[in-house]
Every structure is written in C-alpha cells, then in structure tokens.
C-alpha cells in the first residue's frame, strides 16, 4: 500500500516544537562531543610549525620509530584475528557438530572473557609466565612473556567471546542438509569441511575477522601491560602525547587508527548488514549428529580445550593472587589487597562515573532513537552515522580529541570528572541508540498514533506510551554503559587527573609497578561487578528481545 511512510520535507517533526528543539539540541551535542574532537585530531595531524602541511605524515613514514608501530599493529591485528577465528571455529565446530563431551565447559570458557576487564589476561600471563612467574617457580625455566607472545595470547583470549559468538552464529545457521548433501554425493568429511562448510561460513568469518581486527588495533590495555615496549599504534600515540607532548604526531597516529576502524565500521553497517550468504531454502530437517572422523574432531577439540583451560587458569591465578600475600612466594591467605584506600577510592570513582554516564547515555540515546525512528528528521542517516562514529573511533583517538578540544575555554573541562563522564557517554551512546532503534522497530507505530488520536500531545504520547514500552532498551543501554564504564581505559587514561583516578586505570598502574596482588584484587572486584551487570543485561535481552551486544 502506498500509505506506509509519510515523508515530507521536515518529516513528521512538523508542528512539533518540543521534538524540533530536542533534535537540534542533540545535533549540537553530537557535533560538540563527537565530531569536534575527531575533527580536531584530524586538523592537528596536519599542523606543523604553525602551518597546515603533510609534513607530519612525511615524518611518520620516514622514521622507522614511527612507522614500525603501524607495521607492528597491523601484524598483531592479522595474527590475533587469524588465531581468534581459528579458535572460535574450533570451539563452535566442537559444540555444534561433534558429539564430544565438555560442550558446556567450552562454551562457558569462550564467553568468560566477556565478564573481565579487557586486560585481565595480560595480568594473568604476567603472573603465569612473567620473568619470575608461575612457570619459572615450578620448572625453573625462565620465560619472557612480554612482547609478541604475550600480546598475541592476551588479545586472542580477550577477543575470543566476540569471535566465538559470531562464528558460532554462522555455524548454527548453516543448513545441515547441505552438509548431508555433500556427504551423500560422496564427498569425504574433510572435503565437506573445506568445500562446503568453510566456504559457506566464509562471509560470516570475514565479518567476525573485521571486527576482531579493529578491536585489536584499538586495544590499549594489553599493549600497555604486556607489550614490553613493543611499538604499537594505540600505546605509542599515548606515549607521544604524555611523554613527548608531541600532539601533532600523536594525532597522526590517531588518524591512521581511525581510518581502518571507520572503514570497517562502514562496511559492517552499510554493506554487510545481512552478513553472509547462508543459504536456507525450503524446510530444514533436523539432523542427527554424525560421527566425525577423529582427525577432524580431535585437533579442533584439543585446541578448544587448551584455550578454554587457559582462560579458566587465568581467572584462577588472578583470584589466587588477589587473596595471597605474594602469590607463589608467600602463599599466606590474606585480604589485605582488598583493603587499599586508593583502590576503594578509584572503585568509588569508577562506580560514580559509570553510573552517571549510564544514566545520561540511556536517557539521551533512547530519546534520540525515538526522534530518529519516529520523527524522521532531515539528515537522519547522517545523524545516525555521526552518533555511531563515537563507537567506531578507537578510544585513544577519542581521548586525545577530548583533550585537544576541552583543555581551553570555552569548553575548559580537562581535569574534571565531567569530561570523563561525557567521554564515556558519547562513546557508548551508539549502543543505547541501536538498542532503542531495534526496540522501536518492534513497537507498532499505531500504538502511538492511537494515543495521539485519543487526545494526547506528542510529548504526552512519548512519556506515557513510548517510554514505558522502551524501558527494556533503556535498561539495556544503562547496564551496558555502566559495564563498559567500569572497565574502559583507552580514552579515559588521557582524561584522568589526580583525584579522579578510575579502577581500571589503577589496575594498569599497579600491574606496571609490580603490585600484582593489589592489581589482581581490583581485577576481581571489577570482574564481579561486570559479571552482575552482564547477568542483568542478559535477563533484559532475553525477556525483551532487545539486541544489545550487536557489533560489540
């Protein structure tokens, strides 16, 4: 029918001053807190001795101590991505195709990193395989985990949940009949795996790879903790800024970090929306699990098992190190690591910052999603893109951008708690926005029309009808922002000041200074908080079909 979508020049905002004002306000906020910082970074990267030129970029590509960071980051990204996808595939395959035991264990293991601060594995690796770590104590073999091996392992474990969720999704949605058809036509299991299953899963694997790759590029905590001085883009940008006050070169690093992230993000959201050519045609018939040849299933199973055991082991050592005096040296049980004044203060800060950011993010993102979906303002797509930018741009960039913009009047905010809250708000805003949008598409528009029809104004309709129906998206957005706020480091590390330290950053500092016990205790606390948030979040998603972890 022709009467589906009303489109006029000003969309449905016509005669709706309240929402027009809101739209303008939101646009201004997005411009100020997303576009302006990113643009500032861009401009600064071209500034050299008071002039606009390509000099900084020339320098970047001339001197190896700059460009090798990029080479390292790219190599790290490729390796991490490859390993994550292979491990994810092995775990998914074992879970969904074989009849091997320990499925629940493997699944839990693969998802467990979700509840941890992203750099927890670096910490665990240092405890296990650091210069005087667990391995040295037990075997006397000296291991040095810092640098490449530590980074690859830590990143792999950190990003495994993301990879696993996506790859598993792909494998689950493959029509098992295709596999059977291949076997039926005489192909061996190996041939079926390589000629049917993997090619069909390829688009999905590709999508997962892209996401893991940009997460690896943007990762800050792991290189900082276990990089051992290896030049990596995200951390070098930080060092250039903090150590050398070289904001121009730091900005160049940022721009080079933005390009792949935004590129991948655009591909994800505008070209791969459907993701894969998973072919489901006709009725899918449930199939029995077949015996898989041992030479296919056991390598996969062992790989999956090894990785999941490592994950559990990491959590275990972190926990043990948090409750012992000095793990492996003095194993006396103690709670002293949990009773640090600075630790509780940082935790309190984190809690406060995350809560306030979560409140602001959830309210604004829900209102904004309502405006975008229901009021269809001019330039809707552009507004949505700008909003999503805050999420797509690596944290390091948003951190530097915020300092560039907010360290001088009229927006002098550096050193305050507000800048940290704003930063978290606008970085996580897109998640709430997407949750709101997905919820709104589930709510029939005529429900709001009925309210208008019965005499309620557009504001009244929004408050009495739309908002209550969107409460689940609101809760999801709140919990997610809170959770991320508790564990984020990359952007906020630029923004903290004395007195505004955050728990996640304190862990980093404690670990750097060899204060492993205290760092572990903080990590345990954060893990517990995140775990509770995540469980609540899962309940919300489950009860209400709101997608929250999309693209996470």
């Amino acid at each position: 029918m022709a009467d589906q979508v009303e489109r006029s020049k000003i969309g449905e905002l016509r005669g709706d001053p309240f929402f027009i004002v809101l739209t303008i306000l939101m646009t201004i906020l997005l411009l100020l807190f997303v576009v302006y910082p990113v643009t500032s970074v861009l401009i600064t990267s071209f500034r050299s001795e008071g002039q606009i030129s390509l000099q900084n970029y020339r320098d970047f590509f001339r001197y190896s101590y700059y460009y090798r960071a990029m080479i390292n980051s790219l190599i790290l990204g490729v390796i991490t991505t490859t390993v994550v996808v292979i491990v994810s595939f092995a775990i998914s395959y074992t879970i969904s195709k074989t009849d091997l035991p320990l499925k629940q264990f493997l699944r839990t293991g693969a998802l467990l990193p979700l509840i941890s601060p992203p750099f927890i594995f670096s910490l665990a690796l240092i405890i296990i395989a650091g210069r005087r770590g667990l391995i040295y104590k037990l075997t006397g073999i000296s291991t040095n985990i810092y640098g490449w091996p530590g980074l690859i392992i830590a990143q792999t474990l950190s990003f495994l949940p993301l990879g696993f969720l996506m790859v598993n999704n792909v494998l689950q949605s493959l029509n098992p009949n295709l596999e059977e058809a291949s076997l039926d036509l005489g192909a061996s299991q190996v041939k079926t795996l390589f000629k049917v299953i993997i090619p069909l899963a390829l688009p999905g694997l590709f999508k997962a790879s892209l996401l893991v790759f940009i997460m690896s590029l943007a990762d800050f905590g792991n290189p900082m903790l276990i990089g051992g001085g290896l030049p990596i883009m995200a951390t070098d940008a930080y060092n250039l800024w903090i150590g050398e006050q070289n904001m121009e070169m730091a900005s160049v690093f940022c721009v080079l970090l933005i390009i792949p992230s935004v590129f991948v993000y655009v591909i994800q959201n505008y070209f791969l929306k459907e993701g894969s050519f998973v072919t489901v045609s006709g009725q899918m018939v449930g199939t029995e699990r077949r015996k898989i040849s041992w030479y296919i299933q056991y390598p996969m199973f062992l790989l999956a098992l090894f990785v999941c055991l490592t994950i559990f082991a990491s959590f275990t050592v972190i926990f043990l190190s948090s409750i012992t005096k000095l793990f492996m040296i003095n194993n006396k049980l103690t709670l002293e690591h949990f009773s640090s004044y600075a630790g509780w203060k940082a935790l309190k800060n984190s809690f406060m910052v995350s809560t306030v950011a979560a409140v602001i993010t959830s309210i604004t993102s829900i209102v904004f999603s309502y405006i975008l979906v229901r009021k269809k303002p001019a330039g809707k797509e552009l507004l949505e893109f700008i909003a999503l930018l805050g999420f797509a741009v690596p944290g390091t960039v948003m951190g530097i951008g915020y300092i560039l913009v907010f360290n001088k009047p009229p927006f002098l905010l550096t050193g305050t708690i507000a800048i940290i809250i704003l930063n978290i708000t606008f970085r996580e805003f897109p998640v709430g926005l997407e949750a709101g949008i997905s919820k709104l598409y589930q709510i029939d528009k005529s429900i709001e029309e009925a309210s208008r029809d019965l005499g309620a104004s557009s504001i009244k309709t929004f408050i009495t009808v739309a908002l209550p129906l969107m409460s689940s998206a609101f809760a999801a957005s709140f919990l997610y922002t809170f959770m991320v706020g508790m564990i984020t480091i990359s952007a906020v590390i630029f923004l903290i000041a004395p007195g505004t330290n955050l728990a996640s950053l304190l862990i980093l500092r404690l670990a750097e200074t060899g204060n492993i016990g205290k760092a572990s205790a903080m990590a345990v606390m954060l893990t517990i908080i995140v775990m509770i948030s995540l469980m609540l979040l899962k309940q919300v998603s489950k009860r209400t079909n709101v997608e929250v972890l999309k693209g996470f």
Partner: protein
Amino acid sequence: MEDEIVLQIRNLTKKFGSVVAVNNLTIDRINKGEFVTFLGPSGCGKTTLLRMIGGFYYPTSGDIIMHGQRINDIPPENRKTSMVFQNYALFPHMTVYDNIAYGLKIRKLTHEEIDRRVREIIKIVQLEGMEKRKPNELSGGQQQRVALARCIVIEPEVILLDEPLSNLDATLRVLMREEIRRIQKSLNLTTIFVTHDQEEAMSMSDRIVVMKDGEIQQIGTPEEIYEKPSNTFVASFIGYINLIEGRVIGKKDRSLVIDTPIGKLTNKNVEILGISTGRKIISVIRPESIELKKQTSGINAENTISGKVKNYTYIGSIVRYTIEVKGLQNNMIVSVSNPHGKGVFKEGSVVTLILPKNFHCIQE
C-alpha cells in the same frame, strides 16, 4: 428533518512523492449517525483517506471539513475523530481499564466521571470482569472490543475504523460485524469504516464509497451499489457478475432492444429507457437473477438463451454454475439458490438460461 452534516471532503489529494494515493476526491456529506464504508482493493487509497481524516497524514491539497470548519492542519490529538486501528494498537503496558480510561484522563475528567464512563462502556462492549487484564491476556475479539471501547468512550464526532475485522477469524468476524453495527446504532455514532471485504461493506453500511486508484468509483447505499453499479469496476468488485457488451438497436413496447453476442435482449428497465439508439452499452446481469431450466425444445422466448454447463460449485445454500454460451467469450455465471431437492445440472448438461426482463445497464 434535515440530516446534520458532520464531515465533508472537498477535492482532497494526497501524494507520496510522485505517487498519487488519493486523487482530487470529494464526498459531499457524511451525516450524523451515518455508517459509511470506504471499500476498495488494497492500494486504492482508502486507508490514506481515513488517515487524513484522522490527522495522521497531511493532505497535499483539498479540504477536510468537520461541522463546516476546515480541519486539515489540526493535529490528531485535537481532532474530534477517534480511530480503531487495524491491529488495535492497544497499549501493551496498560490494563483494559487503563487503556479505555486513557483518553478520558488526558481530558482531565474527574476520577468519578472517568470511572463511570469506563464502566458504562465496558458494559456496552461486554467486557465486564476483564478490567484488570493486560491486552496480551485477551482473545482477538476481546482486544477488538477494548479498541472499540477506547475509541468511543471519548465521544468523538466521528469514529474511524481501519479494517478492524481483518485480524479475526471468519466466525468472529461476522459476530463482531453485528456487534459493531449494534453499538454504532445504539449510540448513533457517525462512523467511517475501511475494508476491502465487500460482504462486510454490504452488511454493515448505510452508504458505501467504492474506491479505486485513489478515486471514487461510486457512492451509494448497498442496494444502489449492488443493483446499479455505475461502472464495470464496481459491478465486478461486488459479488459475481455477468457483463455483456452490446449496442442499443431500438425501442419496443417501452423497452430497450440491445444487440449482444448472445442475441437480442429486451430490457424493461425504465431508468435506462432514455439511452439513444446506436449507443454502446454493457448489460449487468447478476447470477441469481438468471433462471436455469432443463433444455426442452427450441428457444424463442424473450431473453432466453441456451448453454452448456462447464462446471459447478455446490456451496449448500446455492449452486454456482459456470455455463458456456455461444457467442460469448467469457462464461456466464448463474447461481441457483436453495438447490436442496431441486437436483443439480451436471457438467456437460445442455440448459436454458432465462435472463431477467429488467436489468441494469452501464453506458460506456
């Protein structure tokens, strides 16, 4: 007594981009207490028209006039219309009672007044005992009643029903049809009803507006629409029809003689007597107006032709025959009512069709 005009539509047009959904459409009057149905196939613009009256679309041009006042730019919340949506649009987070009370609360009536009116309407739509339930705890028919109650409790000038029965199963649909009509009559509600179901339109309406491609094809009572369709679209949209093209070749004994591919037909219908000789004309003959007889001898009686049964559908109350007739490209359709005991002509039987002496014609 002169009827009170509630609503008028003048030269109303709605464009979505380059698509014209409603094209220069005029309805002279919709009277107080009248039940008017917008009927047409999907895409004919009926819902668009309804939504413009409700205030959900702004017209591209033309006027919507309520009680003599132009209401084009008045937003829905300030219009004295109220709509029952196709999927009811009940507020899922509110109880039946709160759903119905919603519009009254907005109007800031006293608590007692709200309660009185909600209880009254709940009785009318027979939902007693359901007040505390949420919409998802109700059956389709009950949801329908809540939607209707919510709509009429605010005493709108016009109630708008957007295919409200399309989500119900067949039996319930017939029941709710009568129910809506009963409530509408007892409260003397001016009602506009949108449907694509001609049976619904025929059985409920005071007047029907038949639409196609954003334009009105005919406005009239169900009888007028059925018996005197103004064009072939209306004729074929409502029920089964035999349309036979022909040409007026003369007049005889106060009747018109029409030359058609199946022979000469005479028509005693006085309303078309004025049509001049030589004009092209389409004879509109309803299947149930044709009498069917076993072929006995040669045919020479007026308006009587011979045919062969191609197939038939036995429905119970009627038998519908498809009959091959010489000279006619399409088959003739004949319904014989109350076939019980009369017997049925099997496929291949040669039969005599006795066409009516008085039938409607459409001028090309």
